[in-house]
């Protein structure tokens, strides 16, 4: 049982700091694995690295610019925390490495036909997945010397792919799309190739409009997705879908739909180590949900209206401090929040 259960009904999301500097909407944020740095990326074609000072406040310590020629849509730290990947509307993905106090672009991944929407590292950091408006998902293998080799081009979505995320333990990749579906990809050992092992569409109690984001719980036996259909959905992911070949019955399935909490597109979801699901939406609000005692039911534990002045595009829990949440918005700012009890 997490400590959140003992805090029922008395929670508040307190703004700790507002990070300003981007000159256009902030699309995405990513904590490094130790929680000491936060990367953000924006329509202003830059990424920024924010670092906590000894005083506790967060400052911009680096601006990553002059590499991408269009919007940077997504950023993600490698599991070792040494590399940062940025995905851009310019159809490329850049890999950055910290050298002293600076970040240098050490590699550029090209191949997608148009806008790259999202990137994700697998748990071991050996694979990187990218997805694009060209409807494909690519898997890249990290080679010595920061070289990346494309090992698979996954076709299956019929529209724009919005986000990719890996399962926290397995080399199983999930993609979500403008075609309303969620697809699960795994490597087929027999043919040594990646293939779609599962599609969760509207006929699987899935979403009825664009699926924007997904997140796994720390154990990987639950997944949350969010959509333009204004809902957040919880899925049971306790079975390994890559062992689904040959018509086996191991599959992921729908557990719960959270509706009526956001009244515009839900852009982002993130599942904390404490079991709290955060969602950020175009209604400028952040909602927090928690699993009930009589699981698998989920309830709203807090709604922060007007969390930002404009759409909330990304919400991410700190990996180090499970009660610290970062959010990014069209208003050009990033906010850090503390989830705590009202005294």
């Amino acid at each position: 049982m997490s400590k959140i259960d003992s805090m029922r009904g008395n929670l508040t999301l307190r703004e700790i700091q507002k990070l300003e500097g981007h000159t256009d909407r902030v699309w995405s944020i990513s904590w490094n694995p130790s929680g000491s740095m936060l990367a953000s990326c924006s329509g202003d074609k830059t990424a920024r690295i924010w670092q906590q000072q000894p005083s506790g406040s967060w400052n911009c310590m680096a601006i990553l610019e002059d590499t991408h020629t269009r919007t940077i849509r997504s950023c993600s730290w490698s599991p070792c925390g040494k590399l940062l990947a940025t995905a851009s509307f310019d159809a490329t993905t850049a890999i950055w490495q910290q050298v002293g106090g600076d970040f240098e672009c050490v590699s550029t991944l090209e191949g997608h036909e148009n806008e790259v929407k999202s990137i994700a590292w697998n748990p071991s950091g050996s694979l990187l997945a990218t997805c694009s408006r060209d409807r494909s998902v690519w898997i890249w293998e990290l080679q010595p010397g920061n070289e990346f080799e494309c090992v698979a081009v996954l076709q299956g979505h019929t529209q724009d792919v919005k986000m990719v995320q890996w399962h926290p333990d397995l080399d199983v990749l999930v993609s979500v799309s403008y075609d309303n579906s969620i697809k699960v990809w795994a490597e087929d050992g027999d043919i040594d190739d990646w293939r779609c092992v599962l599609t969760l569409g509207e006929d699987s109690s899935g979403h009825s409009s664009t699926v924007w984001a997904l997140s796994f719980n720390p154990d990987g036996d639950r997944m949350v997705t969010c959509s333009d259909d204004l809902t957040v959905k919880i899925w049971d992911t306790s079975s390994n879908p890559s062992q689904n070949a040959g018509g086996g019955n191991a599959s992921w399935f729908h557990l719960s739909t959270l509706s009526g909490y956001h009244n515009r597109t839900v852009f982002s979801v993130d599942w904390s180590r404490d079991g709290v699901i955060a969602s950020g939406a175009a209604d400028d609000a952040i909602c927090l949900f928690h699993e009930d005692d009589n699981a698998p039911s989920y309830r709203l534990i807090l709604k922060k209206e007007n969390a930002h002045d404009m759409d909330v595009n990304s919400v991410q829990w700190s990996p180090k401090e499970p009660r610290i949440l970062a959010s990014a918005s069209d208003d050009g700012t990033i906010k850090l929040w503390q989830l705590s009890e009202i005294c």
Partner: protein
Amino acid sequence: MLRELINANPIVHGKKERRRVQSTSTNFDEDIKDPEHPYSLEELNVVSEDLVEVDDKHNYVRVTFTPTVEHCSMATVIGLCLRVKLMRSLPSRYKIDIRLAPGSHSTEAAVNKQLNDKERVAAALENPNLAEMVDECLAPTFV
């Protein structure tokens, strides 16, 4: 270079008297030029005042527009022009929905979905050709 017109002979309607939207000094839907004709969207009955809903209290605006023909391939460009005009004219607190009039277009749902996907709108506006087209249609509105 001449290209074939999608609707070669559109019906041209008169301009109407306009009311002003409360709390803004901009007549935000007026005088946007049609992408292929020297007429405004209002003159072609693509937009009209009664299909602009403004909920000032809830910071919400919805514009419903009707393409001149139901297979109009310019529908997304027209919708994009309406969105950009509103984005530039209204305070950023407004939420804006742009949609086709029900039954007015053969791919209504697809066009509506695209016009209200802000990521695709952002990407489209970074496309120099499309941005130029939108700016051209909006030019009369800034005279």
